[in-house]
């Protein structure tokens, strides 16, 4: 047989196999998380290798423990969900308010120092967040902002802003200039052009960036740990979960229930907007 046929046939099978392997390695940990969260801990200790929840051993007591308020003997995750949600939404909205005009300017308008500004946004995007963490830790300690959710929102903007500007800029660059020019000829001013032409066209991308920012803020861990650790009623879900693991012996199944509570909103959001996100994230990739 000639090499082409051999390769084509074997690669076809290899491809199917590889797809299956990838599906397993990406989905399995989440499936496992879900399975563990609804098994009683005694059953898990007896049979750690089980992949399905046996009939009759299904329990939601783990979730009850995680979600109930601390006063009722639970772990108070409902409060954490509210905190995380508030912080993530506020950080997203503020980031977009600041990022959109800046991204538009860098993408479209020729102004003095444009290249330098463009470079600055990229450079801060790649800068270690731990470097930023130290002085913020100092300032917030002195200003008494440590332990406040508002302070955390400010910090999250430092995490979301550069990447938002970068993504939005790449998108604005793909909008044909001619569209804006024709609006200008029709008498629209610069702000009118942005509001009536560029923003509507960029809406899918803005949504993608908003979702991405929300995910960054919702998933964030280091700054929550640095700034909120002394104030249990202000904890975010990520922080609450990680500290739950350090605390008094908490069953692993309860930890898994907490993980599901933390992961589920993100996964739902992600699958609901998958196309938007994948295209938004790579809108600048072709330039390579």
């Amino acid at each position, binding site marked *: 047989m000639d090499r082409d046929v051999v390769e084509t046939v074997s*690669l076809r099978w290899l491809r199917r196999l590889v797809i299956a392997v990838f599906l397993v390695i990406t989905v399995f940990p*989440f499936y496992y998380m879900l399975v563990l969260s609804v098994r009683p801990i005694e059953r898990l200790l007896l049979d*750690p*290798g089980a992949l399905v929840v046996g009939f009759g051993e299904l329990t939601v007591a783990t979730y009850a423990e995680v979600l109930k308020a601390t006063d009722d003997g639970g772990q108070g995750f409902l409060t954490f969900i509210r905190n995380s949600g508030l912080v993530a939404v506020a950080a997203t909205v503020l980031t977009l308010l600041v990022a959109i005009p800046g*991204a538009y300017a860098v993408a479209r308008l020729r102004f003095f120092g444009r290249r330098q500004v463009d470079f600055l946004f990229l450079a801060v995007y790649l800068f270690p967040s731990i470097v930023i963490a130290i002085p913020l830790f100092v300032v917030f300690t002195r200003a008494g902002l440590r332990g406040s959710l508002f302070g955390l929102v400010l910090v999250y903007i430092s995490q979301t802003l550069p990447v938002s500007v970068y993504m939005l800029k790449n998108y604005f660059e793909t909008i044909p200039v001619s569209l804006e020019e024709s609006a200008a000829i029709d008498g629209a001013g610069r702000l009118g052009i942005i509001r009536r032409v560029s923003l509507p066209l960029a809406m899918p991308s803005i949504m993608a960036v908003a979702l991405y920012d929300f995910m960054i803020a919702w998933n964030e861990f280091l700054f929550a740990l640095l700034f909120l650790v002394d104030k249990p009623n202000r904890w975010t879900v990520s922080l609450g979960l990680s500290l739950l693991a350090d605390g008094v012996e908490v069953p692993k199944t309860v930890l898994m229930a907490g993980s599901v509570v933390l992961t589920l909103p993100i996964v739902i959001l992600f699958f609901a907007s998958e196309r938007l996100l994948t295209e938004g994230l790579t809108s600048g990739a072709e330039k390579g």
Partner: protein
Amino acid sequence: MTTTAPGPGRSPTRERPAPPRRRPLTLRRRESRAGLALVAPTLLVTIAVIGIPIVWTVVLAFQRVRLATLRKTGLFGEFTMDNIDRVLHTPGFAETLWVTLIYSIGGTVGSILLGLVAALVVRRPFRGRTLVRASMLLPYVAPVVAVTFVWQVMLDPQLGIVNAWGQRLLGWDAPVPFLTQESTALATVIVFEAWRYFPFAFLFLLARLQAVPGELEEAARVDGATPTQRFRHILLPQLLPVIALLGVLRFIMTFNKFDDVYLLTGGAAGTEVVSVRVYEFLTARTDIGAAAAQAVVLAVVLIVFVLIYLRFFGRRVS
């Protein structure tokens, strides 16, 4: 008064536009002003929440600051080289740097290779492709705290599924404490890193693959190139610029990574990377000066590596 007096602008004598004192702004200058006005808020916020902190870290690195004395220290106190000195001579400094380097290179190479394979297999349409593609992004979008926990539980010696199956099916003699013994911890953390970030490489490579014109491959096929030859001579050259870019991006991001290692091992068992060390200085020892100095060392080393990289691959990246 019900009627308003005509404003001065409305009077017929002023109907004709007054001769401009200055020449009106050219379109170009108006554009420049609009640009500056629009970028100003973004720039100010960036400088306030990122720029100033970075500069401040550098300042702190040369000051004697501890959390206890924080209120008394001004922005420009006495400058000293003590912190840098202490950081460089605290035991384990070189090892931490070395571990960070291995971790970064391992994580970068691993995630790009996995991402490349993933992009190649889902490149052409098949049934359920959208779902497969979305699933492949899960590790990247899921919260780090949750995925590190699942990994910890999966790899747990007592109740983890990996050890349960390893002993049952692969005949392991004893459970392997993947994350707590020196011989496996770093490798496990690197595998985790590759797993969690391959979707990033996957997305970029897939986007690039789909932009490769179909005629190129068609022509090669007509010329008798086999699939592997087409990959080697058609696709790979097209992908190299993206791979080079991913290399630098992933390296930088992994080098700075804190959460993953901290949550998986806490920096124990030979996995202490620089950012975990900075965190230790900052919280456990409450030595802000030393933490800042360590962070500055991290940033400097990073910049040096990136410059070296750009020197070799610069043309591809740009």
